[in-house]
């Protein structure tokens, strides 16, 4: 992704959802996009898929290169062929993301029928296999059931099965565990880890939970207010992040290995996206901010690891 800018043109104003975002994801890597709600991470994911609601939203600049092709300039028809086949997405809310009036096996089989032109019968058989692969017990029997007959965790598994049906090269997972309880969360994460290895997929994981990123990802991008603040390997982020926002996030998560006497959080609130702060978007809440931060937006300073850090403090001296 290079220099992506997405804005929403609403009656009440223009929302700068994503601004000048750039990052690279190599094949087979687990890539995390981390940020609070409203940071623009979901919009980024949707833009990759081409699922952005175009009337209010507009892609104002940038390129998304996938295997050499710019996704932003590909036709609707070609995008449609890619979607569900080579690039697939798992969505945030399993309760509302499945069609309530269609059988589960049909919904999983649908992508197969459209992209690989096989019969419904055959596709549904493959769907049953997929359902057991994602850990749904009694798959053969349950395949004929409807989404409302499954629990949240099961539905999420169904969505994963649905995304994996066509053995995509790239899987985008948008907060796949947010709507679930902790136990189910860990099960789903383990499942994702397992599947990624087995199918050798590239996974982009969008989340607000650093713990998940630690578990599943090799590299990560930290977003704030539509900007890519820090891009680094996961190890790099956790051990020596240069960016104050990332450090703030790290400090506010609870950790098993350190004793914590007080829960800290980053003071302040996420900015109003119609009228964001000038200069560095994080400066009102940043403990290290100075005048320059308020006036000028820092560029993305490249780091040793190959990533970058968008902060004046990370300026190489």
């Amino acid at each position, binding site marked *: 992704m290079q220099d992506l800018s997405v804005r929403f043109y609403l009656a009440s104003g223009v929302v700068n959802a994503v601004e000048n975002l750039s990052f690279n994801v190599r094949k087979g890597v687990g890539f995390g996009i981390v940020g609070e709600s409203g940071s623009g991470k979901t919009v980024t994911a949707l833009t990759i*898929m081409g*699922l952005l609601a175009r009337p209010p939203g507009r892609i104002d600049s940038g390129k998304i290169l996938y295997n050499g092709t710019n996704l932003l300039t590909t036709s609707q028809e070609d995008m*449609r*062929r*890619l*979607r*569900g*086949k080579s690039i*697939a*997405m798992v*969505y945030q*809310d399993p309760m*509302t*993301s*499945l*069609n*309530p*009036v*269609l059988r589960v096996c049909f919904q999983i089989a*649908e*992508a197969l029928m*459209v*992209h690989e032109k096989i019969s419904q019968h055959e596709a549904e058989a493959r769907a049953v296999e997929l359902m057991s692969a994602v850990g749904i017990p009694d798959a053969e029997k349950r395949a004929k*059931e*409807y989404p*409302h*007959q499954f629990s949240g965790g099961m539905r999420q598994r169904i*969505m994963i099965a*649905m995304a994996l049906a066509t053995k995509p090269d790239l899987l985008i997972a948008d907060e796949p565990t947010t709507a679930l309880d902790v136990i189910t969360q860990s099960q789903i994460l383990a499942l994702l880890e397992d599947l990624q290895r087995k199918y050798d997929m590239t996974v982009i994981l969008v989340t607000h939970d650093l713990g998940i990123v630690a578990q599943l990802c090799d590299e990560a991008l930290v977003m704030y207010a539509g900007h890519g603040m820090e891009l680094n390997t996961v190890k790099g982020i956790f051990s020596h992040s240069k960016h104050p926002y990332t450090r703030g996030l790290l400090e506010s998560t609870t950790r098993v290995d350190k004793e914590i006497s007080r829960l800290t959080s980053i003071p302040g609130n996420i900015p109003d996206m119609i009228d964001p702060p000038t200069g560095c978007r994080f400066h009102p809440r940043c403990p290290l901010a100075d005048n320059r931060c308020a006036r000028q937006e820092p560029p993305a300073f490249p780091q040793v690891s190959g990533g970058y850090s968008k902060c004046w403090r990370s300026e190489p001296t």
Partner: protein
Amino acid sequence: MGLPAYVAKRALVAIALVLVVGTLNFAILHLAPGGPETIFLNPRITPAARALILKSFGLDRPIQEQYLLYLEGMVTGNWGLSYFYTESAFNVVASRIPATLLLMLPSLILTVLVGILMGILSVRRPYSFVDRFLSSFAFFFYSMPVFWLGFILLTFFAVTLSVLPAGGMISITTTGFDVVDYLRHLILPMTALTLINLASFSLLVRSSMLEVLDQNYIVTARGKGLSERLVFYRHALRNGLLPTVTMLGLFVGSILSGAILTETVFSWPGLGSLTFDSISRRDYPVVLALFFIFSILTILSNLITDVVYGVLDPRITYD
């Protein structure tokens, strides 16, 4: 809940509603100045009939007994004696039902078919020219009094152009049931009735579809790479039309009310014009009976649509 349990529950609700209607009737009866005596006992009826009514409605008994007797009368078809026609109100009303059905059913079918079509056309490209045109069309007819539209149609087609018959259901000269003649008479009243109901129905369809198109599973469907056509017809439509089924049930009530006015304008010999005539003639037993029959028809159609909905929505059929 499973289908049988659901149907049973709905049927019970329907029965309860019928009882409520009966009670309502009873209450209104007693609210009327003069009470049930003046309503049921027309000075012109024979003493024998008078005695019969007194007895069967228990007008000389305490109110609880009257209530029970009234309900019993409802169920057994004893709805009082018409002033105007010297028959039981039940007979009078029952004889007019077929005519009303002959007007209502075609109108209902047309409303549904065209309404769904209009709704779909509007929604395929929301806020496009087609959509705004159809929506304006709907708003326009939604505020129109149905009897006015009827008059305009009547005056224009029947008087000015003399193309279509000016009222009634069948011509006096025909014997038996001539379909063509019936259809010729049907066109104008049905158009009036349908246009107005079409307006609100298509708006409901549109609104329901828009809500569905906003849902997350539509994004999921698109994300699978399905064509817009597939997404729309297979995913959106099936979900969007479900609430429409329910709304239909409520709609019948509206069509019935419209029928009252339309039948009057076109002298269509059904329940509607009977209502008008009975009100003019102060034939109260018939008026009450008519309300009762209208309610039953509405409750019945609600029940039918509820059941159909239950069959169509897997969330009810399974679990």
